[in-house]
């Protein structure tokens, strides 16, 4: 299993996309090149505004611009969009439901920058903020096609964005669709719901599980709020042995919690296993190492399936290694902050 690797899917795509949208402006907080908008700045210098390392003011300035009909796209690391400036995000942007787009790069444990740079509870925090729309892209096709989807939302949008070397898992002909799950495989034993980069990781294990005769109903979620796609409920209802969620986020408040709420709301009495950061911070290391260390990898999925089924599946680490051709791109790790 090997996917095409796309270098910097956001960079040129965002330049091309912005060309006929003079209302689109970019605000950054000293991470311009790190968020792939250095060339955007050089292309549209009159629409680019450096706000320095001052995210609270950046959020308020974005609100003012949006009130006047501009569409600010803030580019910085995910953590810096919701931790420090949360009050500003809530009162200046979310309450008036302004068209501000928050491009949060390096979500979850994708950065060796350690705890200060790892947005592990952004979904939990922001999904509790009224008027927010939350997206997470899982591959290059979604990174490219999210722009149109976000542009259409008449309110604030937070995007867990991808940069650098990104796999193309979904064909270009199947762009990001608002509030629509992608069904990646069908089966009646277990329903598996994944999001973001974790989907690619899960896809490594699924063929091995299927070879063992286990039916996996696999859904990829890219709209986290709203979370009302009827496909999700339908997939959960059909699971014989239970449901697994898998996310690059804390198990508290993210995809796992959303699915738990959906199941409880609908009286679905199935086991739910939530793979993700188990209510813990992480630290600075490579993505591959962290995914293994914190149990966010294909191995963790195989073990969780085995637990739900109550049997040893006979899938070894070597089996998983053999399918691991592109799981973590070496150049992504080497990239500077």
């Amino acid at each position, binding site marked *: 299993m090997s996917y095409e690797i796309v270098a910097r899917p956001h960079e040129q795509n965002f330049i091309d996309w912005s060309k006929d949208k003079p209302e689109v402006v970019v605000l950054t907080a000293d991470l311009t090149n790190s968020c792939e908008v250095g060339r955007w700045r050089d292309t549209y210098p009159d629409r680019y*505004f*450096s706000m320095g390392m001052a995210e609270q*003011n950046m959020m*308020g300035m974005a609100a*003012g611009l949006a*009130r006047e*009909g501009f569409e600010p796209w803030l580019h910085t690391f995910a953590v810096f969009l919701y931790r420090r400036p949360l009050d500003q995000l809530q009162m200046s942007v979310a309450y*008036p439901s302004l068209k501000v787009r928050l491009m949060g790069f390096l979500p979850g444990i994708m950065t060796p920058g350690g705890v200060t740079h790892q947005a592990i509870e952004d979904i939990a925090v922001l999904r509790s903020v009224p008027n927010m*729309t939350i997206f997470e892209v899982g591959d290059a096709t979604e990174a490219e096609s999210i722009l149109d989807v976000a542009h259409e939302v008449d*309110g604030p949008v937070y995007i867990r964005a991808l940069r650098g070397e990104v796999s193309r898992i979904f064909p270009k002909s199947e762009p990001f669709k608002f509030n629509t799950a992608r069904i990646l495989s069908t089966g009646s034993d277990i329903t598996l719901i994944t999001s973001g980069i974790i989907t690619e990781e899960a896809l490594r294990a699924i063929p091995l599980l299927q070879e063992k005769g286990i039916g996996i109903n696999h859904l990829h979620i890219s709209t986290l709020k709203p979370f009302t796609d009827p496909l999700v409920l339908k997939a959960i209802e059909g699971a014989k042995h239970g449901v697994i969620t898998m996310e690059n986020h804390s198990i508290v408040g993210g995809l796992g919690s959303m699915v738990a709420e959906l199941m409880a709301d609908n009286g679905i009495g199935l086991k739910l296993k939530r793979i993700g950061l188990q209510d813990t911070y992480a630290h600075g290391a490579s993505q591959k190492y962290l995914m293994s260390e914190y149990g966010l990898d294909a191995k963790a999925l195989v073990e969780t399936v085995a637990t739900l089924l109550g049997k040893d599946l006979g899938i070894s680490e070597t089996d998983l290694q053999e399918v691991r051709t592109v799981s973590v791109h070496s150049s992504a790790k080497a990239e500077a902050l």
Partner: protein
Amino acid sequence: MDYYQILMNSNKSAHNLIKMQEIATGIRRRVLAHTLSNNGGYMSQACSSAELLAAMYGGILNLAPVPSPIDPPSFIGVPLVGKAIKRDYLTGAQFHGAKGPEFDRFIVSPAHYALVVYAALIETNRLREDGLEHFNKDGSTVEMIGAEHSPGFETTTGSLSQAISQAGGIALARKLRKESGKTWVFMSDGEFQEGQTWEALQAAAFHKLDKLRVIVDVNQAQCDGPMDSVMSIEPLVARVKAFGWSASVVDGHELSAITDACALDTGHPHIVLCYTDPVRGLPLLNERRPVLHYLRFKSKDEHAKYELAYKEMVK
């Protein structure tokens, strides 16, 4: 004659200053009357900022007129994502008249000054006199801490120091559209304890927002008491100048000084620091020192004393 000269000349006219003084007197009177009838109110804020707001609404601001004083609407709900009620929903900005490239904008930052702002709007025929009857009543937009549905409030700013950034964004948008109108922010001095204020000041200077204006009620009082006992912000004028702004320091009860300072066009974002007396016009408030933030009567006797002061005021 250019616009600024006209403004300066007109503001300096004795007639205008007299009108402004009447507005200021009306603000204090209305806020005291309301505080008496409601057994509470942000009284010291009216005492300190009456001239400042009278000068703004009475001539400094170039606002479109409203045809007749507006009846404050009932609250129709919060802004919702993707819903039509959102941006066109009745905001407090309607009390500032129609927007236009040549007109000024006025963003009120200390939302707890709401009662004082409402009084100023009544005095300048933008809000109906009986609008105050809705103050702090369930289902009303005339809220105690104003938000963007409240008369005179264009944005939601009760979490202090957020207005200057919002106004910076508005000023930046207007600069991109080459509009001639200014964007004004009314701030309280306590907000200069917040880090965001300084972020906003540095950004406005960096992006050369030369039509951004800030006017501050430097009453040196905050919720816990005198500011120098809570967290000093002095030397304020030196600090803001160091951040790239031009600044005027005036007696905040001297109308001609306020109007002169506000007419300056320095080519930089400009701040007018109005040093004020939080008991001006109501010396009885001195008995409440050191904490002046909110006046709630402790006894019938105290209420009676303020009744007497009110009678003096309207004599």
